[in-house]
C-alpha cells in the first residue's frame, strides 16, 4: 500500500511541474465554458424555462462544474501504457513488484489530485462571475460529490486503461481510442446533459458506464438529486467500477501472456 501512496505522491509532483500547461488548460476550459453556457442558455430561453429538467441557472452550473471537472476526472485520458507496450518498456513495468493496474491507478489519482485546483478553480470563478452558480448550501452533496468524483476518476482511468491494454493484441490502438473518445464525449454528458437527448439516445447512454464518468458527479455536486437518489447514483458508479475492474484484470492477465517484447 505504501508503494502506491508514494507513486501517487510522485505523480502529483510530476504534474505540478507543468504549470504553464495547467494555466493553458484552465484558460481553454473557461473559453469553452463560455461558449457552451451561452449555447445552452440560449436554447433554454427559447424553450421558455427549462429543458430536460435544467433551468437556466442549473444548466449554467452544469456547464461550469463540467468544465472544472473535465481535467481532474481525466476525460482526455493518456496513452502512456500503449506507448510503453510499443517501445517495450512495458517489460520493466511487468517485472516490478507492484500490480500493474494499481500502480497506474495510483499515479492517475495523484494527477487528479493536482489537477483539481489549478484546472478546476478558474472555470468556476469565471462561471460565478459571468452567469452565477447554483451550488447547494448543505454539506451532504459535497461529501457525496467527493466520493462520486473519486469513483468517476477511477472509472475514467479504467476505461482508458482498457483501451491502452488493447495494445497487447493490436499494433495500433488509434482507431479504438478515437471510437472510445467519440462515444465517451457524447454519452458522458460532457457536451450536453444526457437528459437533453432524444429518448432512444438517452436509453442507450444510461445502459453504458459513460454518464457515471461525468454527469453523475456534476449532478450530485450541484445538489440536483436528493440524498437517496444520489446514493443510488454512486451505487451505479461503484457497480460499473467493479465491472471495469474485472474487465481490466482479465485483459492484463491474458494480454501479458500474449505480449512479445523484442530484445530488452
Amino acid at each position, binding site marked *: 500500500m505504501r508503494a502506491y501512496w508514494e507513486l501517487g505522491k510522485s505523480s502529483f509532483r510530476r504534474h505540478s511541474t507543468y504549470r504553464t500547461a495547467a494555466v493553458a488548460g484552465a484558460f481553454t476550459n473557461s473559453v469553452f465554458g463560455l461558449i457552451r453556457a451561452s449555447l445552452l442558455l440560449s436554447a433554454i430561453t*427559447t424553450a421558455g424555462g427549462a429543458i430536460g429538467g435544467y433551468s437556466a441557472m442549473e444548466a449554467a452550473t452544469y456547464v461550469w462544474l463540467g468544465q472544472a471537472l473535465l481535467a481532474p476526472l481525466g476525460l482526455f485520458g493518456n496513452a502512456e501504457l500503449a506507448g510503453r507496450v510499443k517501445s517495450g518498456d512495458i517489460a520493466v513495468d511487468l517485472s516490478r513488484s507492484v500490480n500493474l493496474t494499481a500502480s497506474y491507478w495510483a499515479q492517475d489519482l495523484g494527477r487528479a489530485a493536482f489537477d483539481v485546483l489549478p484546472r478546476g478553480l478558474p472555470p468556476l470563478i469565471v462561471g460565478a462571475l459571468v452567469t452565477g452558480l447554483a451550488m447547494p448550501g448543505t454539506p451532504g452533496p459535497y461529501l457525496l460529490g467527493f466520493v462520486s468524483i473519486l469513483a468517476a476518476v477511477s472509472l475514467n482511468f479504467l476505461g482508458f486503461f482498457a483501451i491502452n491494454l488493447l495494445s497487447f493484441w493490436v499494433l495500433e490502438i488509434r482507431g479504438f481510442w*478515437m471510437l472510445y473518445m467519440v462515444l465517451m464525449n457524447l454519452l458522458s454528458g460532457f457536451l450536453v446533459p444526457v437528459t437533453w437527448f432524444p429518448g432512444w439516445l438517452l436509453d442507450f447512454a444510461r445502459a453504458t458506464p459513460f454518464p457515471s464518468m461525468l454527469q453523475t458527479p456534476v449532478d450530485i455536486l450541484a445538489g440536483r438529486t436528493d440524498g437517496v437518489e444520489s446514493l443510488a447514483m454512486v451505487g451505479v458508479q461503484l457497480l460499473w467500477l467493479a465491472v471495469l475492474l474485472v474487465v481490466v484484470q482479465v485483459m492484463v492477465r491474458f494480454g501479458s501472456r500474449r505480449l512479445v517484447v523484442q530484445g530488452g
Partner: protein
Amino acid sequence: MASPRATSSLTSRRATSSRAGDPHAPVTNFVLLKLLVSARLRSQLAYRGSFFSDVAGQVLLGLTEFVELYAIVHNVSTFGGMTLAQTLLVFGLASVAFALGDLLLGETDSMSETIRSGKLEVLLVRPLPVLLQLATSDFQLRRVGRLIFALAALAAALLLTDVHWDPAKIALAIITPLAGAAIFCALFLGAGAMQFWILDGRQFANAFTYGGRYVASMPGAALFFPIQIFFTFVIPATLVAYAPSLVILELDGPAGIPAWTGWLGLPAAVVLSGLMLLLWRAAIKKYTGAGG
C-alpha cells in the same frame, strides 16, 4: 552537399515517368508536394483494413458532432433564430471548412511535440519550406472521412433549406467553404507558431482552433454578445459559416454579427493568413535548437 543531388535525381525520375517531354523542368515545390503526398497516400492505403476503420471513425466523429447539435436543437423550435435545417447549413459549411483546414495543417496543432522531440531540426535542414513538410508529413487521408461526412451534411442542408438562389449567393456559397478552410489553416498555423514561445501551452491554442470549430458550427446568435464580437472580429470563426448562412438564407443577424459580415469571410481569411504567416516566420526565426 547532398541536397542538389537528391533534387536532380528526383527530376530525372519524374522526367522518365510522366513528363518525358521536358527533362530539364525545374523541380518546383509543387512537384515535390505532389510526390510527397502521393507517397503518403500509397503508404496509408497499403493497410486497407486499418485505413477503412480509420475513415469510418472519422465519419462517426462528424456524426457525433452533429448529434451534439441535434441534442440541443430537437428541444426547441428554433435555435439562435434558426430552424434545424438552417443550423444544418451552418454545421455543414463549418464542417467542410474545418475538415479541409485540418487535412492541410492540422499537424501544426502538435508543434510542441515536434519541437520537443527534435523533429523540427530534421525538417529545418532539408531544402524545403518547413510548412510544406509539415503539411505533407502527416497528410492523413483518413481525415477525408470527416470531409465526406461534412459534404453529406452540407448537401442535405442545401436540399432541406429553401434558398432563393441568385448569382451573388451562388458565388458566396462557393467561396465560403474555401475561405473557411483558409481561416482554419491560419488558426492552425497561429496555434503552431504560438507553441514556439509557450512550449507547454498547446491547450491555449485549442481555445481558438477547436473552440473556433465549435463556434463556427453553431448559430452565432445563440452566443453571449461579447463572445459574438470576439469570435467574429478577433477570431473570425462565425465568418466561416454562420455569417454567410445569414446572407444565403436572408436572415437578420444578432447585434454582434450583422448580416453584412457574411461577405467578410474571404477578406478575413486573407488578412488572418497573412498575419499568421508572419507570426510563423517569426517563430521559425526565433527557434533555438537544443543541439539535437
